[in-house]
């Protein structure tokens, strides 16, 4: 899933990019409205995160141009001006949500995930795209379209990255999978691997889905190789 981020502050932009990549999204980052509009036309992103005050073209204008062309992508405004965003929503420019500065990582992720679920739901209703099927890993039922896993009645929030890892493990049940194969499959070929990235992610994922993260049942460690399911 592609996310276009348009934010003129370089640090905020880079931080958002990092959060979203880590979450499993493909990110296109731009520094002003004109670049954002160009990137939108070039990449057709699923989600657009727009800062309101940007050089060359403000976020409202970018949103208007996008909505004139299509209703497809979800649009989120990122703003420090709370009263302006009220006006935006009031004017029904077509924004799906807004993230108000100063925001925390958890808030950004919660809103992006909510938007992603809505996109899946919309696609399901319109039947426009083949949605990922649900699958089971041990006693965990994973429903990718909801970005959730279920153990009995207990719902577990999952990121896109989590889903990619679990899907990769599910497809290769019983096989020991190398670290590089995880990076290639779940992060993409152009990702520069950091040995700690995968381990940390697996560690956090285990905390979410394993009954006892210290004795994992779903994601088992294969010493010297990588990880294995089953």
């Amino acid at each position: 899933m592609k996310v276009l981020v348009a934010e003129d502050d370089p640090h905020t932009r880079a931080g958002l990019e990092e959060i979203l990549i880590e979450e499993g999204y493909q990110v296109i980052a731009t520094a002003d409205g004109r670049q954002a509009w160009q990137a939108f036309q070039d990449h057709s992103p699923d989600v657009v995160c727009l800062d309101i005050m940007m050089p060359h073209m403000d976020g409202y204008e970018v949103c208007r141009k996008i909505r004139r062309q299509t209703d497809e992508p979800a649009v989120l405004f990122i703003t420090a001006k709370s009263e302006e965003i009220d006006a935006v929503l009031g004017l029904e420019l077509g924004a799906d949500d807004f993230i108000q500065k100063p925001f925390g990582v958890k808030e950004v992720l919660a809103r992006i995930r909510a938007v992603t679920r809505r996109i899946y739901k919309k696609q399901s209703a319109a039947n426009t795209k083949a949605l990922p099927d649900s699958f089971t890993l041990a006693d965990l039922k994973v429903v990718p379209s909801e970005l959730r896993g279920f153990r009995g009645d207990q719902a577990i929030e999952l990121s896109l990255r989590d889903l990619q890892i679990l899907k990769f493990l599910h497809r290769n049940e019983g096989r020991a999978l190398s670290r590089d194969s995880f990076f290639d499959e779940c992060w993409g070929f152009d990702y520069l691997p950091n040995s700690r990235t995968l381990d940390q992610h697996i560690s956090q994922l285990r905390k979410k889905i394993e009954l006892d993260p210290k004795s994992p049942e779903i994601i088992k460690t294969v010493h010297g190789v990588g990880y294995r399911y089953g």
Partner: protein
Amino acid sequence: MKHRYLVVFLLLTLVPAGLIVWLGWRVSAEEQHRTRREFIAVIDESLQTHRQIIEDRLADRFTDLLQVVETARLADTAGRRELARTHPWVRQCFEIGPRGRIVFPSRSQLTEAEQNFLMRTATIWQERQPFRLVDEYGSRADSGWHTWYWSDGPHYILWLWHPATDHVYGIEVERMRLVSEVLAALPTEGQPHVSIPSEAQIQLRDPSGRVVYRWGRAAVEADASPITSIALNAPLTSWTLSYYTGRIITTRQFSSQTLINTLAILLGTLALLSGLAIYFYRSMTTQMRDAAQRVTFVNQVSHELKTPLTNIRMYAELLERSLDPDDERRRKHLDVIVGESQRLSRLIGNVLTFSKSKQGKLSIHPQTGCIDETICRLIEPFRQKVGADFSIEQQLDAQDDCQFDSDVLEQILTNLLSNVEKYAISGDYLSVSSSLSDGLCEIRVTDRGPGVPTSKQELIFQPFERLSDKLSEAAGTGIGLSIARSLARLHGGDLSYLATDSGSCFKLTLRVSP
């Protein structure tokens, strides 16, 4: 806002202006009325003066003519006929016996003149007592004038009662002689007269309304109405003296002069009021603009602070995510950065909320949620901050989902908890209770700190009011409770301070819907 000041401006100018117009109109009308009254009084006086002149002259003649009547009484028939023929004032003599019987002229030997006299006076003799009428006090007159009308106008008789014989003697006065006598007493026609203005005219009119005499320079049209008129006394009853004016003294002129004066006063006052109103309006708008600029500046600064604050918080959290779970020391350091950035966010949030409340822009956006969940979400970081020695009691009974603005509740509770942290940390105790019934949520936040003195329990909700401004006291902006109460009231509830034995207790109510 501007419309309100425009209305005030218009009220400040138009209402007094309207009052002045009304008062001016009243004064003008009163002035006209008064001036006219005075003018008519002056004219009346002038007319009465002239009437007096006429009466004085006639009074003199009355005395003279009574002598003539006396002469006629003593004269025989021939003497009386001679008197009528030769005396310029006497047209005819007569004598009437008791019960109205005509003694002279005797019907047995009448001259032509006497026959005419009897014919002219026929209506008089029909009366039993034509002359000796009783006045209103019961007295009977013994001499006087008698006027009657015959054919070409009024005729005049002067009579005298003789008590010894109970006969009435009299003469018919030559009418033209009488009129000439009157005219001789009046000022010369066409000449200015001291007693009337040069542009006025007085007319003497006979009983038929014909102008007999006029004086004064004014040109008066034939159909003009007099300013005022008075009737003459006997024998010229039904004669009138009328006062006319030319162009100078008219009601319209009085009216326009007064109107011009009133308008001048009105315009002057209106200009003064407008000047004052503009001055105050400008002064007020300048103050408002300055205040708005200050608020806007704080608003702008607060917004500008948000982006660097976002970066501090976001990167601290990113760093925290990549931290080794066992690296407790660094995690603590990052917790401080995240915690302080959140505190700064709250402060900025308070400033912006305060700014919004001053601009009347605060609004609530209720959504379905659980009040207790919001409370727990806030208590947890507070618990971590204050440490294990600090006792926190929770009696939460608002688990049912309802419609409320969680951001508003969060901001109110954050302010209350922040106050506990700043001022009541020494009490080592916090109790938070919640309940939900009949669409009203009640939350109580109680501590065992120093509490608030009774005299200041309401004052603490005023903006910028702090219990102490000492440097040694905990820092604060002094707007937290004011904002919290504003938000609570916006949410259909209230925030109040409840007196307790020790510490403070804040009672928060919010109107919620299922």
